[in-house]
């Protein structure tokens, strides 16, 4: 088991190196000179030149890459070119918020999807199944930003139950922070439920057709036991993979939701720094999310044998 984890982490190194290289080069392909953008339209050529030297931008690109990579390995992702804050600390503080929203939403979405997917498949072609399938398809078709805006309009503006703009950190006002987080979490939960429900439903249908389910019934077990002991563990494994992929994807990219609800999360940080040509921050964010992606999927692969013992980890 430990050997396996160690091996997987070793395998992640080339992946992350390629990510780092791609990130570094892509950022440099964005048109516009960061020094120019930072100093504004009217800056003198001398001022721009001196800022470029300060940022290390006049070095050859491979040299810049080597310098950045070397420092990143030591845990120093550099400082923001705009505010001068250390990138590592900036990412971590913003990520906390994103992580809370994503973990709660995906957790809720998984619970809902597993329950309804299982029930819908169990009563395939019944009214319940049609309703679940219809809702899942509807939710899939609705863009999350639009859903967010509608919820804001109804609960924030019309009913005035929840705040509309802004955010208070949890440490300052716990209740306030929770109120600000309700709508983004609800929005994200709803929009992630669709795919997961459909996945759970279709893998449950496949499992229900297998002989061991009939065998379990022929033993005289109740439907409840048949579903919980014999169907659920086998049907959940494919959904678990999807949950892992969803987590990885969302950790790096709920920029749209964060923008709609004006939350200072990791996604917003990334968008803002791209617009500001803040190279160190963009690079740091992308490298961070890629690492997270690799780790989440490793975790899923380690958990997989719990549901499907045919897959061994070693």
């Amino acid at each position, binding site marked *: 088991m430990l*050997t396996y984890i*160690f*091996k997987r982490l070793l395998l992640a190194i080339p992946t992350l190196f390629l990510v780092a290289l791609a990130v570094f080069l892509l950022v440099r392909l964005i048109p516009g000179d960061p020094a120019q953008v930072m100093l504004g339209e009217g800056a003198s050529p001398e001022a721009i030149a001196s800022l470029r030297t300060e940022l290390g931008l006049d070095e050859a690109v491979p040299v810049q890459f080597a310098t950045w990579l070397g420092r990143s390995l030591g845990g120093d992702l550099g400082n923001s070119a705009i505010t001068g804050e250390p990138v590592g600390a900036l990412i971590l503080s913003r990520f906390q918020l994103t992580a809370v929203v994503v973990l709660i939403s995906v957790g809720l979405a998984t619970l809902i999807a597993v329950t309804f997917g299982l029930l819908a498949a169990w009563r*395939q072609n019944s009214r319940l199944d049609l309703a679940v399938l219809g809702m899942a398809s509807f939710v899939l078709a609705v863009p999350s930003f639009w859903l967010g805006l509608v919820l804001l309009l109804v609960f924030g503006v019309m009913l005035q139950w929840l705040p509309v703009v802004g955010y208070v950190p949890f440490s300052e006002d716990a209740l306030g922070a929770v109120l600000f987080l309700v709508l983004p979490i609800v929005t994200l939960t709803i929009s992630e439920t669709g795919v997961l429900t459909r996945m759970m439903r279709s893998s449950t249908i496949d499992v229900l057709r*297998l*002989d*061991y389910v*009939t*065998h*379990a*019934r*022929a*033993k*005289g*077990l*109740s439907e409840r036991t048949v579903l919980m*002991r*014999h169907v659920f*563990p*086998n049907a959940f494994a494919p959904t678990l993979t999807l949950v892992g992929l969803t987590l990885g994807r969302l950790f790096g990219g709920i920029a749209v939701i964060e923008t709609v609800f004006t939350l200072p999360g990791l996604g917003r940080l990334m968008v803002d720094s791209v617009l500001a040509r803040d190279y160190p921050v963009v690079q740091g964010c992308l490298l961070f999310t890629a690492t997270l992606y690799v780790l989440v999927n490793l975790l899923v692969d380690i958990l997989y044998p719990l*549901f*499907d*013992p*045919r897959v061994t980890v*070693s």
Partner: protein
Amino acid sequence: MTDALLQVSGLRIEADQPGLAPLLEGLDFEVAAGERLAIVGESGSGKTMATRAIPGLLAAGVHRAAGSIRFEGEELTALEERDLRAIRGAGIGMVFQEPMTSLNPALTIGKQLAEGLKLHRRLDDAEIRRRCIDMLRRVQIADPERCLAAYPHEFSGGMRQRIMLASVLMLEPRLLIADEPTTALDTLSQREVLELMVALTREMGTALLLITHDLGLVAQYTDRVLVLEKGVLVEAGQTREVLAAPKHPYTAKLVGSLPRPGDGGATGGGGDVLLSIEQAVVEYRGKPGLFGAGAPKRVIDGVDIAVRSGEIVALVGASGSGKTTLGRAALGLKELAGGMVRFDGVDIAAMDRRQERDFRRAAQIVFQDPFSSLAPHLRIGEIVGAALRHVPGLTAAERAERVTRTLEEVGLAGYERRRPHQMSGGQRQRVAIARAIVSRPRLVVADEPVSALDLTIQKQVIELLQALQRERGFACLFVTHDLAVVEQVADRVVVLEKGRIVEEGATAAVFANPRHDYTRRLLAASPALAIAEGSAS
């Protein structure tokens, strides 16, 4: 009769969709305590449905429309689901066909065995464990303690079926319904499982309802037989009488399609050596560790086989003997770790591009499972025509013409526009044969081409393959575990055990005088041969 254990009368099963003909009509039968009754019929005859209806476990989409089912005097159709559950398992046990899917892969054997006992008997954990171990021992599982903690995937098909048997018989039901319990097993495991089933049910006084399409098994293991055709009972009686003198034409057809020695016979090839396998070794990589792979597992170990042009050579062995692997290696579909395969004298691993293209055209394969060997998104015409894409100088019109003619030859004229899912298993296997012969190959490797089919369809497909072989004279390497088929088609037979050849020779000679112990066991375990000999004498 009032002392019948199970009494089914007027059973009718219909599809939920209105307007369709009933799937099973007016079925009456009885099973006495301790009796062994067989229900035979082809796929779609309703035999499985009839038995699933007994404990109220019909699949979704069909329902019982009429009829009464009495078990130990109690009317099952009038029971609440709850009371029915108390009878399932404890009164009526069921064993299913597919050992690969009838145990839950996510639970240990111990948990699955204990489940029924926990539900139906009030026993403490130690007693449950003791009974599980005892039962596993009775179904001849070595090391039952370890088995309890293991998962189903760690066992072979035959062992899983024995574990299934243990889990069902542990509850000592009065009736055991076994639905094609050994169809998916090779001949040796088939015999073992059935002998066990019969011995244990006899010991416990359990009645056995055996559903099968294999008349060989019926003859050997049951007292009475019911014959179903398209949902209607056409014949019933003592097994011996029904098989010896079938009254209904359908029963006669079923009995007639049992493979018999001396039927047809092959062309008897005597040409030059076309395919020669020399000292072939095939290995599978060991489990990967941190530093490279573990020790490789040898599945083919120094095998020599020569196939002459126009000859049919049967490659026989139990599951795991390496026969399928060897068949694939003969076509270069499996890499050799040692030795070589020559086609027309040329080492297939050393062929240049042109030679390889010619070889691919001249050597074709028919796979076992007609449901997964045809690409579902292509039309039949495209599937068969694809084999012609390497033939140089063939215009599209000529290609279409060849496809049409080949489909006619396999009895599927006009099927070009169909897709695989619109066809039955037997028809699909004909498509697979058409695909193999359309490029006019000199060698066809047939990998268990009929073992997934019904007996009557098997007969048709084998006859087709034989007729085509006689007409076109291609050589054939026929991989199978079914000795009855071998006797019918092959000139020579090669018996494989654990990756080595243990016996080979002319089919008649090997069958008349098997020298190796393994061959003798294989022959003894073949039920169809036993009945064929019985009826001939």
